[in-house]
């Protein structure tokens, strides 16, 4: 399963650990990404986004709760916990209740194949990348359940738009990821990362290994924005048109779960793009002569640091784009997907194949 002896040591040891019949280790393996999502959404996701958006607009952002408003998110969570959990009378109660759950599970399931460093991965599937692309499609079901179950025209419009958008953009996204899979020759997330490890740091990354790789990288990044409903592709939750889109009717903790799912999928696509093109948990620093920076900054803990930092960098770019670009129209969205991204993804696919054969 692993070429290098140290690969997956932590998660393998954890999964073998159990108390009696109860596989406690497996539970811990699942809990670690969950706690990570919660912590990151609380700090970087909400507080960070509010601060970054504020600074980009020459504002200060939250300032009152704690030093520089650092406890603002905790106060918001406390408020959300106290809120009444409203289910509209006319809603389809079953769909309304399970919608946020499916949404969150959909984005969380992909974390199973994200390697948090060389020593930790939930499940090192040999079809990891394929699984990640496929399992995210469950989110569509959650969005449609939430939008339809709300029995609200805004929610339904948001859900319909969202489904059309996510299903369309999965095509260029998958083709772009296929380019990375072709370069690696494997679909296992750990193996793709190992292929990009080496003493020269970032020089081994697929993005810099192939003269055409920037094209699938860019295409996947744009498509991932659409798949996570981030601006400029946030037409499913367009505030000025649809109130809040498919979660218009949600309040309290259900609303918080939807937000957690959004931040979960934001990190998920950022981690996938880092793994596919930017070397996942490998260190970007090269060994320069006797100064072995790469060797010094590699290892299980450093790996976790690098993958999280790379993910956070792309989340920053997502926020940066969100506060720069206006929202696309529905027809522009479909134009971009079918007439620009898909043809270019196919071109880059062919060029990558040619490069891989003849290099």
């Amino acid at each position, binding site marked *: 399963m692993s070429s290098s002896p140290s690969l997956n040591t932590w998660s393998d040891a954890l999964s073998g650990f159990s108390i009696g019949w109860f596989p406690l280790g497996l539970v811990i393996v699942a809990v670690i990404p969950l706690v990570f999502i919660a912590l990151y959404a609380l700090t970087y996701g909400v507080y960070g986004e509010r601060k*970054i958006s504020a600074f980009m607009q*020459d504002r*200060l952002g939250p300032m009152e709760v704690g030093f520089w408003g650092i406890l603002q998110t905790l106060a918001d969570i406390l408020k959300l916990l106290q809120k009444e959990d409203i289910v509209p009378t006319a809603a389809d109660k079953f769909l309304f209740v399970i919608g946020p759950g499916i949404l969150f599970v959909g984005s969380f399931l992909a974390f199973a194949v994200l390697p948090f460093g060389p020593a930790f991965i939930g499940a090192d599937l040999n079809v990891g990348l394929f699984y990640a692309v496929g399992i995210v499609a469950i989110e569509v079901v959650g969005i449609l359940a939430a939008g339809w179950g709300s029995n609200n025209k805004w929610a339904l419009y948001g859900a319909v738009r969202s489904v059309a958008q996510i299903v369309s953009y999965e095509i260029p996204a998958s083709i772009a990821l296929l380019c990375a899979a072709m370069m690696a020759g494997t679909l296992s997330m750990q193996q793709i990362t190992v292929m990009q490890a080496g003493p020269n740091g970032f020089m081994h990354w697929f993005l810099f290994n192939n003269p055409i790789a920037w094209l699938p990288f860019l295409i996947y990044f744009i498509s991932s924005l659409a798949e996570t409903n981030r601006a400029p592709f946030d037409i499913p939750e367009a505030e000025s048109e649809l109130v809040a889109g498919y979660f218009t009717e949600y309040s309290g903790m259900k609303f918080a779960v939807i937000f957690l799912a959004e931040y979960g999928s934001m990190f998920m696509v950022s981690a996938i793009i880092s793994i596919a093109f930017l070397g996942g948990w490998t260190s970007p620093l090269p060994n320069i002569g006797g100064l072995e920076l790469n060797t010094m900054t590699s290892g299980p803990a450093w790996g976790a640091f690098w993958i999280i930092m790379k993910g956070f960098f792309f989340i920053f770019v997502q926020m940066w*784009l969100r*506060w*720069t670009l206006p929202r696309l129209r529905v027809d522009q969205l479909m134009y971009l997907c079918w007439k620009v991204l898909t043809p270019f993804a196919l071109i880059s696919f062919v060029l990558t194949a040619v490069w891989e054969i003849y290099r």
Partner: protein
Amino acid sequence: MSEYFSNIKTGATTIATGMAITLKHFFNAVKRKGDAGIDDADYFRQVDGLCTLQYPKEVIPTPPHGRYRLYVNIDDCIGCRQCERACPVECIAIETIKTTNDDLAVCGKTSGGQQKRMWVPLFDIDTAKCMTCGICQSVCPTDCLYHTAVADFSEFDVRNMMYHFGNLSKIEAEAKRKKLAEQQAQAAKEKAATGAPAAKPAPKAAPQQKPGGAE
């Protein structure tokens, strides 16, 4: 086809331009924009940066000629009630008591040297109603009613927006009212006693007699 590629090119360049602008603002967030007003010469030469004002902690001073909260310098008020009549929203309520002659010295003079002839036990301004039009200020003969530069005077209870400027307490006002009524009754009695023959000297004599008679 060329339009297709030029569209893509325009899209890429405009996105890059926009992102450069937002990133510039993001890095400028370590600086604060100066607080030069629009009438300052270097208004447009201020550094780019955060321009949020943390209001209760940081305040741009209101101009000294600002026209915000209404204030009465009650020591200068002669109780003419012109402001009350002029107010278009009827936010001023005044009650006056005529000063008895022996109290004229106590009642005092305005800062302009004019003798005050009225006690003003009630001078209420409902600042919640006041629309800061300034008409009352323009009609005031002693310039004792004016808008100040105090702009932040919000209250949690709307009743606290009623400002009381009267210069007599309730008990004092009651006493003055009683005194005036007694004196008027006395004057009426004397007028009745002296009768028609002394009609002419009476107005002159009466005021001189009254102080002694009353006290």
